[in-house]
């Protein structure tokens, strides 16, 4: 039973091609179950960056044809099998195939596609392991920890100063889109938008209402600067909106100032005040650039985790080859044992119950001991020469042909 993957992604096709085969959640589920009706295990993963069909079937060529047919709206498809397919899925789950390495959304999307798929033993194992890989990579590397945009870098830096942002009050200076984006990022991490100041009070009110904040005129800034924990400034003013004299030394809590404006809104001399940390747009872009290169470094570590997991999956898949042979070998041996005991029934009739139990136990132990080493060898050889050993076992013990290598049965999920 081979794993087959047919799909397209942002690495291969532009958005106008990807959108032709993109599916919503219901469409993915419907496609998976429709293809599963042909006797395959199927999972369909569709996100804004990729649409992929994973299938397992006794005839991999047929499975590939089915999947390719489902995605026939684009000729730009990749086709991968077994180890390569597992490697690809594990990299996807780990965020290594994403535009921003390590982004977290993809893991949830893989989980949803798995839950909606028509899985059997192989895809069940493959996707469970993919989810495990995704979590492991994020736990053991820092790939998902660093920000990938200026506004998320500003929020991450604020957290580096204050930790929990729940008690932090934010002063927004400027009511434009840049301010709002930064505000949203801070609010999503628990900060409260306390005030919005703008040259035109009307615009300040609009944004303040959306965040249940207080609107201010720029003239009213100084007292609020003393109360705020975080200041985000992004106006189009030609000069400084916040001067060094307006910011006094912080005795208790620090002040984190994010200046996103060009030309700058905040006098750089503000940074010399004790307890005040000032980051302008260039500083934030440098942090983002460093953090993205950090993600790439962490990606190298993540790749080695993924490769280890692919090897584990390969071993598991190979072990499937020998499981039926081991089961029938045990069955054959038990048949011999119980048959010989039945033949000796006349001579054993005089034994007491406890003596009979002893004979049962003794013969079972002999059979187990005789089978132990061959079974261990079969399992060990599964990853390298499983079929050869299965053939040898069948030949040596006279097992029937169908006992040799049976594939797993399909078990579609509801």
């Amino acid at each position, binding site marked *: 039973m081979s794993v087959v993957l047919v799909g397209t992604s942002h690495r291969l096709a532009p958005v106008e091609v990807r959108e032709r085969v993109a599916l919503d959640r219901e469409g993915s589920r419907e496609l998976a179950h429709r293809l599963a009706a042909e006797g395959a295990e199927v999972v369909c993963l569709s996100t804004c960056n990729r649409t992929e069909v994973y299938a397992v079937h006794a005839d991999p060529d047929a499975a590939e044809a089915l999947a390719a047919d489902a995605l026939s709206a684009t000729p730009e498809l990749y086709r991968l099998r077994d180890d390569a397919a597992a490697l690809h899925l594990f990299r996807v789950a780990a965020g290594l195939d994403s535009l921003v390495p390590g982004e977290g959304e993809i893991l949830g999307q893989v989980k949803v596609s798995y839950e909606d798929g028509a899985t059997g033993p192989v895809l069940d194992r493959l996707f469970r392991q993919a989810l495990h890989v995704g979590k492991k990579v994020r736990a053991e*590397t*820092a790939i998902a920890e660093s920000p990938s945009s200026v506004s998320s870098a500003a929020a991450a830096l604020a957290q*580096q100063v204050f*930790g929990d942002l729940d008690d932090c009050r934010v002063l927004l200076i400027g009511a434009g889109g840049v301010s709002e984006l930064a505000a949203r990022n801070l609010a999503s991490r628990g900060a409260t938008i306390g005030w919005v100041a703008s040259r035109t009070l009307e615009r300040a009110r609009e944004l303040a209402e959306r965040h249940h904040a207080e609107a201010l005129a720029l003239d009213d800034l100084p007292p609020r600067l003393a109360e705020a924990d975080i200041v985000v400034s992004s106006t189009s003013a030609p000069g400084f909106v916040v001067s060094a004299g307006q910011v006094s030394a912080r*005795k208790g809590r620090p002040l984190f100032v994010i200046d996103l404006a060009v030309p700058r809104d905040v006098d750089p001399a503000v*940074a010399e005040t*004790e307890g005040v940390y000032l980051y302008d747009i260039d500083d934030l872009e440098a*942090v983002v650039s460093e953090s993205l290169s950090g993600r790439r470094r962490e990606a190298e570590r993540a790749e080695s985790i993924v490769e280890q997991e692919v090897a584990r999956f390969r071993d598991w898949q190979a072990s499937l080859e020998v499981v039926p042979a081991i089961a029938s070998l045990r069955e054959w041996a038990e048949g011999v044992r119980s048959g010989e005991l039945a033949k000796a029934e006349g001579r054993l009739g005089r034994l007491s119950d406890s003596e009979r139990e002893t004979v049962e136990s003794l013969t079972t132990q002999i059979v187990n001991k005789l089978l132990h080493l061959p079974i261990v060898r079969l399992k060990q050889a599964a990853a390298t020469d499983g079929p050869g050993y299965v053939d040898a076992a069948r030949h040596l013990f006279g097992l029937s042909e169908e006992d040799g290598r049976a594939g797993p049965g399909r078990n579609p999920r509801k």
Partner: protein
Amino acid sequence: MVELLIWPALIAYGEAAVAYAGDARRPGRLGQLGTWGVRLGWLAQTGLLIAQVAGADGFPWGTWAGSLNLFVWLVVSAYLIWGCKPRYRLLGLLVMPLAVLLLAVSYAAGGIGESGDSRYSTVFLVAHVGLVLAGFAGFTLAAALAGLYLWQERLLKHRSRSILRFRVPPLARLDELAGRTVLVALPVLTLGMAAGFARVRDSSDLDLLIGLTLVTWLVYGAYLALRYRAGWRGRRAAYLVLVGFTLVIALRLGLPATHFA
């Protein structure tokens, strides 16, 4: 037996110190190796202390060198409370080199050998030496927290582009933890000092070490008063913790002759 345990402890602590230095340059697996070094070293040193207790008649760390050995164990134990968490690993940058240095000094000065008969009772030594050293161990951890605070604060002030590369606790958390650690350690030191003063008969029992311990107590007392009454936080508070810590080190290393003579 005792000789056999000192080397694994020293080697494991040394490995941790080197690994943490590497982790500060390039965060990642080295940090995990460092943490394992601390754990293994701590187990070896715990075994060493148990062997010393088993082989001694009374309190085995009554000498200056012996007390250094116990001090290192208390410092590493205090570090392990936080240091196993990835974000707090880099506290080991200060703690582990110090542990290696002091344990080596203790070994060289005979701190793991037999301790001679003491004129003090075991109960007194446990109360006095044990509590004073536990207080000093708390100050050492507070110094590591303050050091990490100042390092990170400097990165933030200088707008270092690599600030987010390091997995360290937020500034506010480091500041708060340093304060709380001193808040716990100072009463412990006070109890230990009180036990010592209870044995003072006349002025000939007083020495320079006692005087310096009092100064240390005053520095940390002032730190707590300034922090919780005058609102001192951040850089100034961290510097004050480090001033107190230099006194702790002077006490531990510089003045063995007076008090232990």
